[in-house]
Every structure is written in C-alpha cells, then in structure tokens.
C-alpha cells in the first residue's frame, strides 16, 4: 500500500534453441516486461517465416470469424446477460513449438476454410444473382409500357436495335438528328415515362456507325434486354419464379452457414486466439540481441515474482542460461515500469489512479487515499438514502456477476458500491429519502441537518472538508519529497501551504480566544513568507506576478470544494421539485377515478429515476474532478510508466506446455 510494487531488472543469456520455449514460458507466465536490449557487438533478432505465417493466418482466421459470427444463433442477450455474463469455456492446446502449431493450424484451415469459403461464395453469388434478377424485373416493368414481344427488341442479322431512356427535352432534337444522319432509314418507337422518354431505335446494320455517336451525344441510357420470349408481362412472371427459387437457395445457404457456425465457431475462435498470441509473441523479437548460437534479453519484473521466474527459466533452458537479477540504478528511476500494489479493498480504485496516470517509482500511490475520499465526496454530493440504496443494489448485482472477469465493469461497479454506502450514511444524516418525500407525506424524519434550512452549515462542512483534503495532499507531498531528499521543494512548495492551512484553522476555531488568534496569525504569516521565498527561489523576477496568481489559485482550489454543497443541494432540489409536482397532482380525480394517484406514481418513479441518474453522473464527475484537479495538484505528478507485462491473452484457449 502507498508504494508501487518493487521492481528488479532481469538479464538472461541463453542458447538460441531455447528461444521459442523461453519466450512462450514468459508469455504465458505474464509477469515480465521485456525491454529493448542494445548491444553493439550483437545484431537484433527478427521474426522468422513461422512468425510471419502466424501473422498472416491470424488475418485469414479473423475473416472466417467475422463471417461465422454473423450467422451465429443468438443466445440469451438482454439485461440478464449484461449483469451475469456466462464464462467462456477454455480449450486446452498442447504446445510443442511454433512449427507444430503452424502445422496444426494449416491442417485445421485445410479442412475448414474450403467448407466455409464454399458457403460464403454461394451466399455472395446468390445475392448477386438476386440483385441481377431484381434489376431485370425492373427493366421489364419499364418495357411493359411498350407491350411488345421482347424478342423483337433484340438486334438481328440485318437490323441493329437500341432501347434506352433519354431526357424528355433532349428527345425531339435527338430524333431529328438521327433521322437526318441515317437519311430517314430509322424507325423510332417512343413512350413518355415520367420526365424521361423510353425509346426504341431500329437502324440498318450499315447505318449504326453513323447513329451511335449521336445517341451517345444525347446521353441515351441503354437498356439491356433480358433473355426470354413473350411480352414483358409474361416474362415478369417467369423472372419472379426464378427470383423465388434463388431466394430459397439463399435461405438454404444461410442455413448451411448457421450449421457451419454451430460446428466451427468455437474452434475458429480458438485458433484465432492461438495465432494472435503467436503474432504478439513475435513482436518482442526485435528487442532481443543475438549471435549465431545465443540470444540475450532484458526486462523488469516485480520482486515478488523473482523466485518463480528464476525457477521457470532454469527449467525451460535445462539450466543452460546466464541469469542476472539486479536492483535498479539511480539513473534508471524514470525507466522502471509501475505496477500498483494495493490490498483487495482498494484494488478496483486503481482504475481511477490509472486513468489520471500512475505515480513515478519514488512517488506515493494515492489509491488508498482516494478510495476513501472519492467515495465520501460522491456520497456527500448525492446525499440521499434511497438513491444510495438504488445504486447499491444495481452495483452489487454487477459486482457479483462480473467479479470472475475482473473487468472494467466490475471495477467501476465496485467503486459505485463503496460510494453508495457513503451516500446512504449522508442521506440518513440529512434525513433525505427521495428528497423530502417522507416529510411531504406527513412523517417526522429524524435528521441532524436539513439540506436547505442549514445550507450554510453544509457550506461550512464542505469548506472544512476541502481544507482537510488539501492539507492531507500537501502533507503527503511534504513527506514524499523529504524522503526522496528533495528538502528544498518540501520546505518551499509544500510546507508553506500546510502552515497557511493550519493558520486558517486556528483562526477560525479560536475566534473567541486572543491567544489562539495570535498563534493562527503567526502560522499564517510564516507560511505566507515561506511561500513568497519559494516563489522567488523558483521563478526569480516573475515571482511578483506568480505570488498573487498562485495564492489565489490556492483560494480557488479551496473554494472549489463548495461544489460539495452545491451538488448536495442540487440533489435535494431536484427531488423536491419532483415531490412538489407529485403532491400537486396527487389529489386530482375525475369523478370517482383517482387519476391523480396513477399519474403521480408514474411521475414519482420516472422523475426519481431520472434524478438518480443525473445526480449520480454529477457526483461521479465532480468527485473525480476534486481528486484530479484539486487534490492531485498539491503533490502528485502521475508521470510514471505503467507496467505492461509480456503476457498472452487467453479467453478461450489454454496452453499446456512443457519445456
């Protein structure tokens, strides 16, 4: 707690023939972050042909997955699935080197790919066919205006026949020009069709050369005459019959696809995961240094995992390896990856710290502090027992359903669950149950303060909490900087504010005693002087301006905690507005029907749910902001590098492997 996990550096040199198994061991174990190794006398390693194949097969397989996914039968879904997602079964694979794995994938693909591709091709071609038939039916519908046997519309040995549409205003000049060019040896049949004209041109073969450019010039859109005999009406019936047949074909192809999905989906996803992990494994190769016989790698790992990893490497390399584990150097301080280490109750809150940025290696990990302060502020801003209860129930369900996945939903619901306890406590203190609903209904609600009548008390509380929060931040910063040997910054950046805050507190608490007043003023004064000295040391001439702006920056940060009061009142206010509206409508009745109660209940439930949602969003955002902007501003950089271990992603597969 408060410190990130201790890290050590590991260096390994071993024979090339153990490379694949060593990397596989580290990848499955997932506790070492591999870093680039720069050795001048050795060359960089690079992926071999099998790694390249893995990358290409992972693309091939992901195409198959996409296709099958579309035809997978839907299972469950809905709200139950969301709260309690089922765990996916993991299939075992016995790993005996990448060559064997690639062979296995190739034989799997050889069996499955043609089957899937055949169905996929069938579906695509049938769909194209259906589109084509639909297009021809549309053409026939157009031609049906002519009521001619379509075989007359096809060119013969002697005649060239062109059917097409042209803009109506272009039709007349087109006819004139064609007639002139062919010296009257053209027959033209036309039919008006919306703002176009459907026209049939009949020329002698010999005249076609002359007429064609003219048709193009007037941008005649040619129509391909569909195959078949008979009038368009008769042909449409034939084509619709064809269409039905094709649609049935499509349906049966889709059924085949569904069966394939049922049969192969899990396998395909399994092999996809295997291939993607191989591809990811090969991405570290360029970070290794190699000679003809040996290779070397370096990386970081948590101290707690050292014995296990040493044991593993020895086993994998049959003891033929040089391993060096050492403490980080002073100059490597910024290089060390940061893995947060917290007890179970605070671990989900690491999400909030990570979102801002993890601490540097010599900084404090603020997660345990914000576990408490974030939840408390959330509760203070929501301040309603029933709202807390609603959130607690939803969050508890989600925590139960997602715990086994340890995913984002679990972490977020856990933070909500803790926050909702504070919400209920604050709600009970302020006697707020759906706002003032119980008061309006005529009950006497026990409460320490009333949100509205004691608004000033709430404001004082909010500012006092703010001062305490800021003091905590400056003190933590003071201790951390002192420990890291940065005395100047501890004394000039952190201490002044601690003294100023202490001064303010003594002044406020001791308004009636003159001695406390003197002490308070003294503390405040010393703090202010130290602060001014700090500004001058840090900024030189600019200090004159910065003293003013930084001091009021502090005041602004402090007053920013007034939002605790404002949001608490906003919750009570929205709830009150809803309650008053419900109360107004409650007594309304049409004749003997108490319509007001019905509408009132709907309004109450809907309104209060809206109020929970909007106020919980506000509480989340502003509680987080107080941590990130005001609190972290006092001591925290969040500029550490997060720990990214070399780790396989295993959702549906499990690797059984022995070195």
């Amino acid at each position: 707690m408060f410190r990130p996990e201790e890290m050590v550096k590991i260096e390994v040199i071993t024979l090339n023939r153990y490379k694949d198994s060593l990397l596989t061991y580290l990848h499955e174990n997932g506790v070492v972050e591999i870093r680039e190794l720069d050795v001048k006398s050795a060359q960089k390693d690079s992926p071999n042909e099998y790694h390249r194949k893995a990358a290409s097969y992972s693309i091939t397989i992901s195409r198959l997955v996409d296709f099958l996914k579309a035809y997978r039968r839907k299972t469950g879904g809905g709200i139950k699935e969301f709260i309690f997602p089922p765990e996916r079964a993991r299939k075992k694979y016995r790993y005996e080197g990448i060559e064997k794995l690639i062979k296995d994938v190739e034989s799997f693909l050889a069996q499955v790919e043609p089957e899937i591709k055949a169905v996929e091709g069938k579906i695509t071609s049938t769909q194209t066919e259906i589109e084509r038939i639909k297009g021809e039916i549309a053409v026939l519908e157009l031609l049906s205006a002519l009521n001619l046997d379509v075989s007359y519309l096809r060119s013969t040995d002697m005649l060239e026949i062109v059917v097409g549409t042209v803009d109506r205003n272009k039709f007349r000049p087109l006819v004139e020009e064609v007639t002139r060019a062919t010296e009257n040896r053209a027959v033209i049949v036309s039919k008006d069709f919306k703002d176009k004209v459907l026209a049939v041109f009949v020329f002698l073969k010999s005249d076609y050369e002359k007429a064609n450019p003219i048709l193009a010039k007037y941008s005649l859109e040619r129509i391909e005459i569909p195959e078949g005999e008979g009038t368009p009406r008769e042909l449409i019936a034939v084509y619709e019959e064809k269409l039905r047949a094709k649609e049935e074909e499509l349906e049966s192809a889709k059924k085949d696809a569904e069966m394939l999905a049922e049969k192969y989906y899990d396998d395909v996803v399994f092999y996809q995961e295997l291939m993607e992990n191989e591809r990811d494994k090969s991405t570290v190769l360029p970070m290794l240094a190699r000679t003809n016989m040996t290779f070397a790698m370096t990386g970081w790992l948590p101290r707690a995992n050292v014995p296990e990893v040493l044991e593993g490497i020895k086993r994998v390399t049959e003891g033929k390896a040089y391993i060096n584990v050492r403490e980080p150097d002073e100059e490597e301080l910024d290089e060390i990856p940061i893995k947060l280490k917290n007890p179970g109750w605070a671990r989900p809150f690491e999400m909030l710290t990570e979102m801002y940025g993890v601490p540097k290696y010599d900084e404090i990990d603020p997660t345990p502090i914000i576990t408490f302060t974030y939840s408390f502020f959330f509760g203070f801003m929501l301040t309603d027992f029933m709202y807390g209860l609603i959130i607690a129930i939803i969050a508890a369900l989600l925590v139960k359903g997602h715990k086994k996945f340890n995913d984002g939903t679990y972490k977020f619901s856990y933070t909500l669950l803790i926050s909702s306890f504070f919400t209920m406590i604050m709600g009970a203190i302020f006697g707020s149950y759906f706002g003032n609903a119980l008061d309006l209904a005529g009950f006497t609600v026990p409460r320490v303060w009333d949100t509205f009548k004691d608004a000033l008390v709430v404001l004082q509380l909010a500012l006092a909490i703010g001062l305490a929060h800021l003091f905590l931040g400056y003190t933590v910063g003071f201790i951390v900087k002192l420990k890291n040997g940065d005395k100047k910054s501890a004394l000039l950046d952190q201490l002044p504010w601690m003294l100023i805050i202490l001064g303010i507190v003594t002044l406020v608490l001791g308004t009636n005693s003159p001695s406390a007043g003197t002490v308070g003023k003294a503390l405040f004064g010393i703090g202010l002087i130290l602060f001014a000295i700090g500004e001058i040391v840090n900024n030189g001439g600019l200090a004159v301006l910065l003293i003013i702006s930084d001091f009021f920056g502090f005041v602004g940060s402090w007053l920013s905690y007034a939002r605790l009061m404002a949001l608490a009142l906003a919750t009570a206010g929205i709830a009150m507005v809803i309650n008053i509206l419900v109360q107004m409508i409650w007594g309304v009745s049409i004749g003997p029907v108490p319509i007001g109660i019905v509408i009132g209940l709907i309004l109450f439930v809907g309104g209060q749910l809206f109020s929970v949602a909007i106020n919980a969003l506000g509480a989340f955002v502003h509680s987080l902001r107080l941590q990130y902007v005001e609190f972290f501003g006092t001591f925290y950089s969040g500029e550490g590098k997060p720990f990214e271990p070399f780790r396989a992603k295993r959702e549906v597969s499990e690797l059984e492997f022995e070195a």
Partner: protein
Amino acid sequence: MDPIVYVSLGAALAAGLAGAASAFGVGVAGAAAAGVVAEDEKNFKNALILEGLPMTQSIYGLITLFLILMVSGILGGGFKFTANNPDNIVKSAILLGAGLVVGLTGLSAIPQGIIASAGIGAVAKNPKTFTQGIIFAAMAETMAIFGLVGALIMIVTGVGF
C-alpha cells in the same frame, strides 16, 4: 417597484437564462453527437452522456426558481411580501439578485457544450478519452456551481426560510 416584480423577475431570470444557455449547449453537443453516431452506432452511449452535461445549468436554474418561489411563499401558503415596505423590497431585491447570479453563471452551459462537442469527436476516435472528456467539460461547470453557491448564500442569509 412592487416586491412581486423583483421576485418573479428573479425566478424567471434564473430558470430562463440558464435554461436557454443549456439549450444552446446541448444543441452544439447534440450536433456533434449526431455526426459520430452516423460513423459508428457504438458511440451512442458515450455521446449521449457528454451531450447531457450542459443540461445541469438549467437544473440549477430550476432549483433556484423553486427556492425563490418557496421562500417568498408563492409556493405553499401565500406571497409573504405583499406590503410595499422597505424590508420587503430589500428581501425581494435579494431574491432578484440570487436569480440573476444563477442565470448569468448558467451561461457557462454554452462553452460547456462546445467542450462537450469536441469531447464527443475525440471519443469517437478513441473511446478511452471518455472520462477525460467529461472532466474537461465539467471544468466549465465550476462557474455555474459558484453561482449556485452564491445564490444559495444570498437566499438563506438574506431572506431565510
């Protein structure tokens, strides 16, 4: 002026100005939201939450309206400041001031909408920036919160329940 004029002006300006500003803010963000949903429907949830952020100012305005109506007795009972004496005029003028503070600081909904709309665009490109986008938009709300705090102090200390 009669006290009723101050009181109703205060209530109207608080809810009216803040509400209009919220409408502008939500409008700006909503236009961006419609765009990114067209790109990918998965953006809907994130975009909706960001679009809703500039709405809070209108809620602050509404709360202030109700508080003004309550302390002046218009809601529940009867109007307390009917007599046109200096004491009543002072109290009702304070209510006008409180309403005006919330209404004017509620204008922060417009820039908040602009920030939210940029946030929506960013979330569409990289969903991980969602929380950061919310925090950026929340910065603009600080002024409205200060306005509400100020107004509450004016109402509670100047008039009282």
